[in-house]
């Protein structure tokens, strides 16, 4: 990415959505707990390839990397994650309603 041609730097500043702040928090907590490292975070980001920078937002890439690191660490299994994501989706169709009541 560094050195590629690109458009003007966009200057609009947005506040982060709550879910994005939580992703950030979970990455910090996972690092403090020794479950992943900054290198691990970046390694998965690199593995995603350039397409991911076009198709996913910043914290979407982060949560994908967090997940990959935790799966590799054995913190939870693919089956556990899949089952939980189905549960979450069944609770509601917006971020707010999908929280555990």
């Amino acid at each position: 990415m560094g050195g590629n041609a690109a458009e003007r730097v966009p200057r609009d500043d947005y506040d982060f959505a709550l879910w994005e702040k939580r992703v950030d928090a979970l990455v910090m907590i996972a690092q403090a707990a020794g479950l992943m490292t900054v290198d691990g975070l970046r390694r998965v980001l690199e593995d995603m390839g350039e397409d991911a920078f076009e198709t996913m937002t910043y914290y979407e890439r982060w949560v994908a990397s967090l997940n990959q690191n935790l799966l590799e660490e054995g913190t939870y299994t693919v089956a556990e994650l899949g089952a939980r994501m189905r549960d979450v989706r069944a609770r509601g169709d917006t971020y707010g309603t999908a929280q555990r009541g």
Partner: protein
Amino acid sequence: MPHDGHDPLSPSGHPYRPDQDEPLTYWQCMEIAIRELLVEKGVTTDAAIRAQVQTMDDRGPAQGARVVARAWADPDFHHRLRSDGSAACRELGIEVGPMKLIAVSNTPDLHNVVVCTLCSCYPRNLLGLPPDWYKSREYRSRTVREPRAVLREFGTTLPEGVAVRVHDSTADMRYLVVPMRPDGTEGWTEGALAACVTRDAMIGVAQAAHPKSDGI
């Protein structure tokens, strides 16, 4: 500009991202699932996650401004900051974490600017969360390719003969730019000096605010 009166503003005054109240996305769903699993497995607690989010909300560029103001006021501190940034910050009670902090100082002949071409490595404990543009593809791509053009977009036009040095952050190091102390600030207290030190100046896309022209 996003401040057009149509977007609901968050407490910070910035509009929420457009997708805030859209249908639940796959990645939001994943965040909820991971968070719940980490709590259930005893890795963390809901309270700890809330506290971490709060810490993030509270963090801003004030700590970095204190460090720069001290460097301006105390040449010996400036020297120590340049030889071991993390240790010098610790003198002020600021813990920059496990990363190595490298302070780079602007001079009349040299201007420093910081980028992270891979992701958005940034001295958060000193500057708060990085602004959106710092994370943008455009900034990360172009700053190493045409830094002077990027700086001009930020209103920073450097005289010919001033060298530009671009620093690309890595996983292990964080950069802090010590901008040049503005003229006309002789004898100022560190608190008054800190008011001249903006986030953008510490990233290197701007100069320190000038007390006369910027109305401080």
